[in-house]
């Protein structure tokens, strides 16, 4: 589904992502983990083209997407959330969600923003996530967790084939975390491919089918959760061990 081939991103002399390659199989939940500064978020940004990769390729369904502009990538069915929820304040949740709806063409552009069709679809999604009651709240009045849910709702509005979630559990209380996990599972059961960047190891181990471990910009391990748990290179990376060995 999504294939990342020797992706690299250099910031001056710093190699944030340094030849990282992995695959996200269709219909799977794949997690990208690693210690702080491993380059997970940068890799993420390169995939969604929020930052431009220095080199390497990203393929979605066999087509290169690393040269497209971000909105084209979203239109191709790859949507992402941001680590720090970047919602659009002083727009209501409904508007925030509808913002992400597909636009057919020039004629669509000048149709009323909150068309009945979009509102219905947005409300269905909000209902699916159980947050219809905040539909008319301003984006700025939401709690952190509600923002995360709103981000997820906006994501679904664009009919994605694959969703990239950047730390969906970051700063979220355990109850809500369970809820979010439930939603991700449900979406995945319906065939949605998911790529997650996450720190919460417990969550990752429970949720994902496949784990990609990064350290210092490189992939040091790649496999099923059970395998990763026992992989000495991963343990080393997390315990601050010898990275040269791993690479």
């Amino acid at each position: 589904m999504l294939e990342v081939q020797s992706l690299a991103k250099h910031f001056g002399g710093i190699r944030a992502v340094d030849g990282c390659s992995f695959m996200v199989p269709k219909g799977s939940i794949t997690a990208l983990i690693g210690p702080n500064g491993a380059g997970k978020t940068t890799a993420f940004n390169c995939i969604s083209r929020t930052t431009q990769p220095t080199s390497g390729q990203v393929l979605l369904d066999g087509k290169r997407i690393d040269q497209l502009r971000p909105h084209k990538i979203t239109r191709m069915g790859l949507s992402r959330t941001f680590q720090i929820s970047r919602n659009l304040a002083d727009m209501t949740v409904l508007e925030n969600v509808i913002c992400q709806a597909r636009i057919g063409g020039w004629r669509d552009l000048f149709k009323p923003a909150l068309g009945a069709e979009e509102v219905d679809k947005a409300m269905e999604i909000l209902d699916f996530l159980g947050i219809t009651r905040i539909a008319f709240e301003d984006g700025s009045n939401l709690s952190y967790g509600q923002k995360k849910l709103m981000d997820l709702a906006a994501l679904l509005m664009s009919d994605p084939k694959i969703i990239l979630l950047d730390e969906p559990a970051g700063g979220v209380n355990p109850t809500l975390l369970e809820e979010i996990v439930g939603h991700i599972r449900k979406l995945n059961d319906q065939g949605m491919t998911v790529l997650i960047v996450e720190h919460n190891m417990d969550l990752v181990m429970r949720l994902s089918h496949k784990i990609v471990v990064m350290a210092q910009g490189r992939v040091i391990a790649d496999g099923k959760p059970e395998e990763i748990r026992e992989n000495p290179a991963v343990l080393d990376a997390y315990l601050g061990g010898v990275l040269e060995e791993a690479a």
Partner: protein
Amino acid sequence: MMSIAFQDTSNVLQARAEHNAKLALRADRKRVTWFPVVVLGLLLALPALQFVGNYNYVLHLILFTACYATMASGWNILGGFTGYISLGHNVFFCIGGYFAGMILARYGVSTLVTAPLAGLICAAVGYLIGRITLKTRGPSFIISSLALVMIARILFDNWHFVGGANGVALPANDLSVVWAKLPYYYAFVVLAAAAVFVSYKIKHSKFGLGLRAISKDEIKAESAGIDTRTYKTLAFAISAAFVGMAGAIWGEYLTYIRPNIFLVILVSVNMVLMCILGGKGTVAGPVIGAILIVAFNEIFVATLGSSELNILASGLIMALALMFFPLGVIGTLAAKHRLPRILNWD
């Protein structure tokens, strides 16, 4: 394409009903469309005063206000909705004025006819300039817009075909003194109405929603699937078109086109101040701002004389107004839910 199956639809139906009820209530409570229509009707009927006396001064003031209302509303599409503050919009005022003015001077076709064409030319120029300058954001964009004014000033001051710094005199129309202002009066009132109407339409379209998203967070907007580059250049083009049309008619009204009529910073600053005073990003804001600023200027010129003193007084009023209405008159009142219904055109 992935689609999500939803099992329980009763909640959805209920939420939808609630939403529709809320929307209806909101539309009813918040928006008034009859008021601007009545105002427009009154303005269109006002020149009948000329039958009973000479009210040219009143007509001139309204015409002048409508001209600025058009320009401020146009500016608001880029500066208010999209969040790109341009201090260079008088360049389009100039291009519109010169394009239509030169056609009038050479071929005798009235600018009232060529104004829409001037608007199109300005939109095209705006699109090209926007493609380049809209890559920058924030202060850099403001500086780039200022640079645009300087480039245009040098160009027009030295371009002999259009009269250089001396400009070109345009033929006056052959109506009597009482009726001479009328064509321009109607042109500006209609233009202002069109600008407000287009602002309203844009604000409520998908395009407008996209522009609002861009003004809040461009990276997020882009990753939400909004083609930010096209959206903002289009906004630039539309806003340039309105300023250009106003410029076209303004030139013929003054019967003179000269770089230092159009390309002075005061013109573009006035547009910005009107939007900020009235309320950036609202539909009524630029119009209210134009009325207030023109009124302040007239009052202070009349009472304090045409010296630096009147400018000081206008500035003082502006500063005071923005202390109490930081989001502009309309914006602040709307945020506090105190906006009189007749002023809510959003």
